[in-house]
């Protein structure tokens, strides 16, 4: 019997995990927030999400065609980028701006630097920053959820500017479920936390980075945002803006976060400090996107210097 045997190097079995399966899990984890977005911001949100996803996937497809590279849209990472970008847009944003955001995220931020795994900043956040710089008015026109939408400030803006900002401070419960002004995907902490729990259960993400991030923001705002030290309303700071979305879904982006436990803690604390400083002392009411983008830039350095001791490495004490 003549048989043709494979003789590769071990291991000979695999976990069955794949990039596509991970991205599919992220998409599933984003669904509760998608539903919340459509519930609160209705057709506007649905259209934004649809348009950015199509924009990202189509850009990636065309890029691969034009550059004669292997088509990579099946890894689903473009869908994730599209959803995350839409989540970071205000509900009334003209759709053509959203399309430009998708193209920018995919071509400029992701593909020009080598595609999946090589972009040095989070594509969705970089695109949001680009849109903010290009169309600041449209990108900061907020409204309350629902048919009777009226223009309103985000809770963070109300906190920051007080009576100068239109609208009233919403209650904690409205903030938790997402019945507030803001970007379409960031408002419902509840929906985002359900998705985050799914990601943790599926072992797609680990908790050290998000917890370090949220913990730092909580501590800093509790310490510094009150009349006197340690009287700040940290609960509002945690649930009012994009922190939950940023901490669980954006900062944990594989490509742009450290690979070690220690590195992730450093990134989480760094993001937390920057967000707090921007929110409390900066010109913007919100600072999650810029904090994550800034920390993205430090990730290669963190990974370069945080090389753990191997098991039994360094000085070993044995009883």
């Amino acid at each position, binding site marked *: 019997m003549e048989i043709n*045997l*494979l003789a590769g190097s071990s291991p000979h079995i695999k976990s069955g995990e794949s990039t596509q399966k991970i991205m599919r899990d992220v998409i599933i984890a984003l669904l509760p927030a998608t539903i919340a977005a459509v519930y609160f911001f209705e057709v506007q949100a649905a259209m934004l999400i649809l348009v950015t996803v199509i924009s990202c996937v189509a850009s990636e497809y065309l890029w691969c065609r034009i550059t004669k590279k292997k088509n990579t849209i099946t*890894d689903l990472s473009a869908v994730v980028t599209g959803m995350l970008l839409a989540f970071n847009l205000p509900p009334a944003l003209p759709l053509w701006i959203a399309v430009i955001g998708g193209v920018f995220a995919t071509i400029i931020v992701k593909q020009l630097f080598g595609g999946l795994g090589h972009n040095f900043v989070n594509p969705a956040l970089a695109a949001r920053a680009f849109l903010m710089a290009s169309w600041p008015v449209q990108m900061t026109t907020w409204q309350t959820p629902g048919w009777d939408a009226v223009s309103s400030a985000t809770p963070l803006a109300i906190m920051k500017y007080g009576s100068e900002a239109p609208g009233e401070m919403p209650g904690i419960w409205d903030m938790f479920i997402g019945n507030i002004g803001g970007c379409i995907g960031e408002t419902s902490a509840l929906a985002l936390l359900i998705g985050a729990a799914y990601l943790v259960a599926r072992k797609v993400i680990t908790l050290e980075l998000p917890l370090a991030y949220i913990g730092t923001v909580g501590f800093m705002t509790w310490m510094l945002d009150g009349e006197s030290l340690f009287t700040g309303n940290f609960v509002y700071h945690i649930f009012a803006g994009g922190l939950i979305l940023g901490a669980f879904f954006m900062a944990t982006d*594989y490509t742009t976060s450290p690979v070690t436990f220690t590195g992730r803690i450093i990134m989480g604390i760094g993001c937390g400090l920057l967000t707090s400083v921007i929110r409390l002392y900066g010109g913007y009411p919100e600072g999650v996107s810029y904090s994550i983008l800034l920390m993205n830039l430090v990730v290669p350095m963190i990974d370069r210097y945080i090389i753990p001791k191997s*098991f039994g490495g360094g000085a070993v004490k044995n009883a």
Partner: protein
Amino acid sequence: MICEVVYLVKAVKSFRGGIKPRHHKETAGLDTVRVPLPSKVLIPMLQHIGAPCTPMVKKGDRVLVGQKIGDSDKPVSAPVHSSVSGTVTDVRPFLYSSGVEVMAVEIKPDGLQEVHESVAPPVCSNRESMLRAVRESGIVGLGGAGFPTSIKLSPPPGKTVDILVVNGAECEPYITSDFREMMENPEGIIQGIRKVMEITGIPKAYIGIESNKQDAIDRISMYLKDANDIEIVSLPVRYPQGGEKQLIYAVTGRKVPAGKLPADAGVLVQNVTTVSFIAEYFKTGMPLIKKKITVDGGAVAKPMNVEALIGTPIREVFDFCGGFIDEPRKIIMGGPMMGVAQYSLENPVLKQTNALLAFNENEAEEPKESVCIRCGKCVAACPMNLLPLYINSNVVRGNFEETLKYHVNDCIECGCCSYVCPASRHLVQSMRIAKAELRKMAAKKQGGKN
């Protein structure tokens, strides 16, 4: 059966990382069956880590069972013996899957299985003579590494070894041959442990067994009722629990310093099958000529546990298990995590062979490598706390010296990183390349100086 068995469960330290692959230990309940005398045997002169042996027989010679047919005068080596009586038909080079070529003796059995006169229980008066007997038995570490046992039992001067850890973890999927040994020969294992303790003067031994092998734990504890020099430690089920450094940590709480040996942590590790062989040898004087082997995999008609003579062509072992029901695409000697894929069914059973797996097309299929998405799963899985992704990216670029920064030489090649990688990157494989390249570079430097 009601038996009041009390075995001690120590507080076990858990190593970091590791994976939990599917066990596939369906053969655990199957008694070991002996494979009939093969049509020929091929016995390579290197079945251990160290210097190869020189053949002591030539074509046409008649050899007997247990007769020494190869030995070396180098310190790190173990002699090889004939597993059959018959005529030497050839002494020729044999190519291992690793690319190493060694001499091998091919023997055609005459069916008589006449035992050589040298086979007699060794008479030992002191430690030195016992160690010499261990060497003469041809025994090597049967857990898979194949390091000559006589060397392991002679601790380096100046180091005090006070704990013997007996490895019954058997953490690799599919393999149940150690489990069968524990079920079928518990007394032999305990006698072997006592023998090793006698030879080395170690006062205390622990047998580490994964908690999914409760039957084996119960069985061995029945023979340990009043013993306080040997204890069983039930270990969490996680690969690579049986890795030497991980096992030592779990059982004793001691860490083997990076780049050092277990003796540096005061520990000696022996596989259960190795110690039971030692007991057997001191009783009968029959050197290592046969092995318990788990035969499994989707292409095998009747997965089972067998006992085969060393040198048996693996084709004949599979034939004994009903042959193939599916076309085999990959034949693995050892477990699926660290075993060696064989290029031919004519390759022989070796001293360290504890499993033979025949994977069908489906099982052998390897997903295509894609780009690293930096998910960090390899980092989380590495039991040695390394950063496989960065070692891989440096190897891909040919920056071998850079991998030293990432402690590549501490890699135990368990394969957890490659197992978990969603991009199917060849992580552990690239570490092997880095280690080999670094060895070459070091050898060149050495050569340059001389």
